[in-house]
């Protein structure tokens, strides 16, 4: 089996997949804590459906590099959703539901009206649950992924303390003159970028899993924001690598294998927490 693995690792497409997988897993885990605690998870979920709709439109318009269309469209929606969500909570919720379900429906309809291939349901399945597409990435797409990932990590490191402050207590931050709206916008845009990135890896239905599971697992054992952030990054990257390798060896779908690895990690951490590991750790 190791020989087989070594042989696969010799292929450039497998190397690309691993590089991109690691980067995406890293990015998506960083903002997980903020997303969960700020009650932004629903925005993440909504945006992934928007990305699906945008993908369908990109397909029809025969845009070669889908990401170049999907990315701006999703970022735009993130900004719109945040705007409506801030003014009035309840209406904001409904707006998100409408936009997300709407794009899902329109996307599916478009895919059926203008089929790219003869097998529509397989196309749909691919966009929803991810595919082997991570194994067929072009060099351009790999570079785009690398560039965006570096940008996301850099933004996170640069604004780490502000993101913590705004997530922990928005009112206090506001009262000391921190520009809370600007940071909320920044967080929403970064989330949109992460979602578009992660779509390549796990498909639009499973993105939330990639973002939320590592953070939830880390929160079982760690008590500090820093600890949780570092732990969820390490965990997310490990699960991605393990998931990709297993899927190559066993021929399982990449996205769901990675998510399965995340679920196993979550269960493991829950058991450890029950046993009292890390209870007093900072």
């Amino acid at each position: 089996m190791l020989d087989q693995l070594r042989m696969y690792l010799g292929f450039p497409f497998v190397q690309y997949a691993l590089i991109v997988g690691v980067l995406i897993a890293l990015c998506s885990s960083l903002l997980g804590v903020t997303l969960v605690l700020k009650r932004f998870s629903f925005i993440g979920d909504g945006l992934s459906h928007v990305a699906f709709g945008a993908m369908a439109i990109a397909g029809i318009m025969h845009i070669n590099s889908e990401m170049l269309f999907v990315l701006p469209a999703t970022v735009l929606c993130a900004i719109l959703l945040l705007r409506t969500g801030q003014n009035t909570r309840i209406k904001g919720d409904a707006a998100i539901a409408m936009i997300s379900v709407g794009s899902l429906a329109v996307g599916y309809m478009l895919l059926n009206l203008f089929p790219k291939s003869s097998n529509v349901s397989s196309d749909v399945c691919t966009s929803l649950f991810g595919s082997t597409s991570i194994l067929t990435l072009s060099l351009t797409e790999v570079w785009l992924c690398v560039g965006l990932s570096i940008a996301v990590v850099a933004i996170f490191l640069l604004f780490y303390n502000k993101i913590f402050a705004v997530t922990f207590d928005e009112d206090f931050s506001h009262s000391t003159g921190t520009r809370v709206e600007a940071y909320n916008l920044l967080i929403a845009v970064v989330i949109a970028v992460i979602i578009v990135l992660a779509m390549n890896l796990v498909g639009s239905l499973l993105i939330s899993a990639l973002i939320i599971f590592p953070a939830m697992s880390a929160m079982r054992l760690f008590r500090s924001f820093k600890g949780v952030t570092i732990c969820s990054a390490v965990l997310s990257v490990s699960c991605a690598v393990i998931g990709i390798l297993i899927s190559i060896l066993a021929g399982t779908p990449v996205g769901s294998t990675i998510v399965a690895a995340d679920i196993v990690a979550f269960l493991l951490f829950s058991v450890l927490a029950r046993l009292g590991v890390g209870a007093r750790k900072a």
Partner: protein
Amino acid sequence: MAQLTCKDVSLGYEGHVILSGLNFSVSAGNYLCIVGENGSGKSTLMKTILGLQKPLGGSITFGDGLQNNEIGYLPQQTQVQKDFPATVWEIVLSGCQARAGRRPYYNKEEKALARENMDKMNVSQFARRCYRELSGGQQQRVLLARALCATRKLLLLDEPVTGLDPKVTLEMYQLIEQLNREDRVTVIMISHDIVSAVKYASHILHIGHEVFFGPTQDYLQSALARRFLTVEGGDQNA
């Protein structure tokens, strides 16, 4: 010159006025207690002073060298979710966010300031503990330490002693009094504990159907205070 002046201020939400024609001013070193019934608009007034929402009318101005980001705030209920992973150290340090400005990380002086304020509030021993695992009184002291990192001049406290036991309440009052007396920090505090309010405060702002603003002695003479004190004080003794 006053640190804070409210002129003919109206408060409310989305055009619905709760309180109007409010006039008062706070000078350096004052200890102002805001009292009034539930729902009379005390927290709303504080949020308006902080700039979290706009006044519906009138003006709020800062003076005497006070910038509007030099205020330390202790919220009535932190909207902190129960499962937030954060240590006491991380939270107190976040009080320095205005000092750090655009700099992404906190420097030595800011860390020293955070340590000093934790000592002052007696929470240094919890530095590496998780905030959510502390008792209510300990949590309040942590948030007060954070507020002190944000200011040396003006503290806004929204019901800092609610939910604390009598002993911890007394300690909290003494800490606040010490900050006011020794460090000359101006204090604006919302309180339902009217007996302690008149004991510690230099000025009282009573809001509701009737409004009173003035020194504590004058307040004690007023008919409004006599009515309020018998009701609330009576409640407390019962």
